C-alpha cells in the first residue's frame, strides 16, 4: 500500500529533532506540523516574517495581519518573533534554519529540483523556493513517486525548468524514502507493503539498492 499525503507527512516528521527550526512548504509539507512528536520542541519558520507559527486560529481570532507564506491566517506561539523579509531570508541563507521541507515536480539523481514552472502552463513565480533550495542546510522533498500518468518523478535529469541544482538530500514519496548521494538515489526504506520491484519500476534515475530494504515504521 502506497502512503497517502498524511502518511508522507508522518514519515517526514520522524526526521525532526528537538530544538529544530523548520520551514515547511505549501501542500504535503504543511501537514508535517500535525505530526511533531509530543514533547519535542520544533519551531516553525514562515518566510513572510514569523518564527513560531501556531495552529490555525479559531474563527473569532482571525487576524489579517497574521498570515503564513501561503497567505493563510495563522496564530503564533509563546516565544514567537516577527521580522521583515530580508531578515527572514537571512535566517535561511545564513544556515540558521535546520530543515526545509518542500514539494517538487521532479528531482534528479544529482539532487537538482524542478518545482516552480511548467512550460506552456501558467507561471505564478518561484516565491521563496529558489532561495530555500539554494541555501537551506538540509532539504527534504515530499512528493508522489510518479505523476498522474505513472511517469517517474525521480529522474536522471530534470526535464522542467530548475529551481535549484545539487541541493536535495532526501526524498520521501508515497512509495519510499531515498537519499540523494550525488549521482544516484539510494533506497533507504519502503512504504508498508510496497516491494523493491515496484519502487524500481517507478524510478527512472539510477537506484542503489543495498541489502535488505526495511519497511517504514509508521
Amino acid at each position: 500500500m502506497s502512503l497517502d499525503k498524511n502518511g508522507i507527512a508522518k514519515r517526514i516528521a520522524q526526521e525532526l529533532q528537538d530544538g529544530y527550526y523548520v520551514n515547511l512548504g505549501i501542500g504535503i509539507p504543511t501537514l508535517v506540523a500535525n505530526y511533531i512528536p509530543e514533547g519535542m520542541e520544533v519551531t516553525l519558520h514562515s518566510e513572510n516574517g514569523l518564527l513560531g507559527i501556531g495552529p490555525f486560529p479559531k474563527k473569532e481570532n482571525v487576524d489579517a495581519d497574521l498570515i503564513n507564506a501561503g497567505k493563510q491566517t495563522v496564530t503564533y506561539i509563546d516565544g514567537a518573533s516577527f521580522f521583515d523579509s530580508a531578515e527572514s531570508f537571512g535566517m535561511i541563507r545564513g544556515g540558521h534554519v535546520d530543515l526545509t521541507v518542500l514539494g517538487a515536480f521532479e528531482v534528479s539523481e544529482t539532487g537538482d529540483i524542478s518545482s516552480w514552472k511548467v512550460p506552456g502552463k501558467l507561471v505564478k513565480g518561484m516565491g521563496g523556493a529558489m532561495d530555500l533550495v539554494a541555501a537551506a542546510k538540509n532539504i527534504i522533498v515530499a512528493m508522489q513517486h510518479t505523476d498522474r500518468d505513472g511517469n517517474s518523478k525521480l529522474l536522471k535529469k530534470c526535464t522542467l525548468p530548475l529551481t535549484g541544482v545539487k541541493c536535495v538530500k532526501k526524498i520521501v514519496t508515497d512509495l519510499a524514502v531515498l537519499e540523494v548521494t550525488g549521482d544516484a538515489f539510494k533506497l533507504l526504506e519502503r512504504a508498508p507493503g510496497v516491494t523493491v520491484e515496484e519502487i524500481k519500476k517507478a524510478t527512472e534515475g539510477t537506484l542503489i539498492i543495498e541489502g535488505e530494504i526495511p519497511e517504514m515504521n509508521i
Partner: protein
Amino acid sequence: MRKVVNNAQEAIVGIKDGMTLMLGGFGLCGIPENCLDALVDTEVKGLTCISNNAGIDNVGLGKLLRKSQVKKMMSSYIGENKEFERQMFSGELEVELIPQGTLAERIRAGGAGIPAFFVPAGYGTEVQGDKEVREFNGKMHVMEMGLRADFAIVKAWKGDTAGNLIYRHTANNFNNMMAAAGIITIAEVEELVPAGELDPNCIHTPGIFVQRIFQGVDYKKQIEFVTTSE
C-alpha cells in the same frame, strides 16, 4: 511636523508617468491601501512596480493593473490575478520574476548603499541568465544588484510625526526594507501620533527613511485565505 501630509492624495504628489515604485506588503497583508486607491484615481501610467506580489483581481495592485497603469512588475509571486495573467500573456505587461529572498535583499542593499552582492539562489536556473557568477567557499553564487525606487510606498501600524514606524505581526514583510530604498518614501499608518509617544526602543523603521507620512482611513485588510482550526 514637516513630514506629515493630510491624506494619500497629498502624499503621492510628484509620482509621474514611467516612474519606478516600491509597494510594501505580502499578498494583501500590509499593503498601502490608501495610496494604491489614490494612484488608481490619477492618470499616471507606465509605472514599474516592485512588489512581492501583485494583489488579486481588483484588490491592491490588482486595481492599478486593471487600469493598465503598470508597464512592468518585479515580483516573486504573482498570485491569483486573472487580469495580470491576461496582460502578461498578451505582452502588455512586462514581468520580471525574482526569487523572494533575492528581491528582499536587493531592496535592503539598495537602501543601504550596496550596489551589488552575491547569493546562491538562482544559480544553474533561468534566473542566473547572463549575470556574473563566482564561487565562494566551494559554492556557486550569482551577482545581484541593489534596487532603489523613485517612490517607496509603505504601510505601518503606528507612526509618529518624526516618521518613525512600527509594524504589526507579519504586516512588516517588505515594508521595512522598502522604506529605506525609496528616494522619496511615503508611509501610511493606521495610527499617527506626535513624536515622543512611541517608545524609541520599539521602532522598526527609523524616521530618517520616511519623507511623507499620514494616517490612513477605512482599511479593508482583506484576507486571501481565511483558514480556521474548526
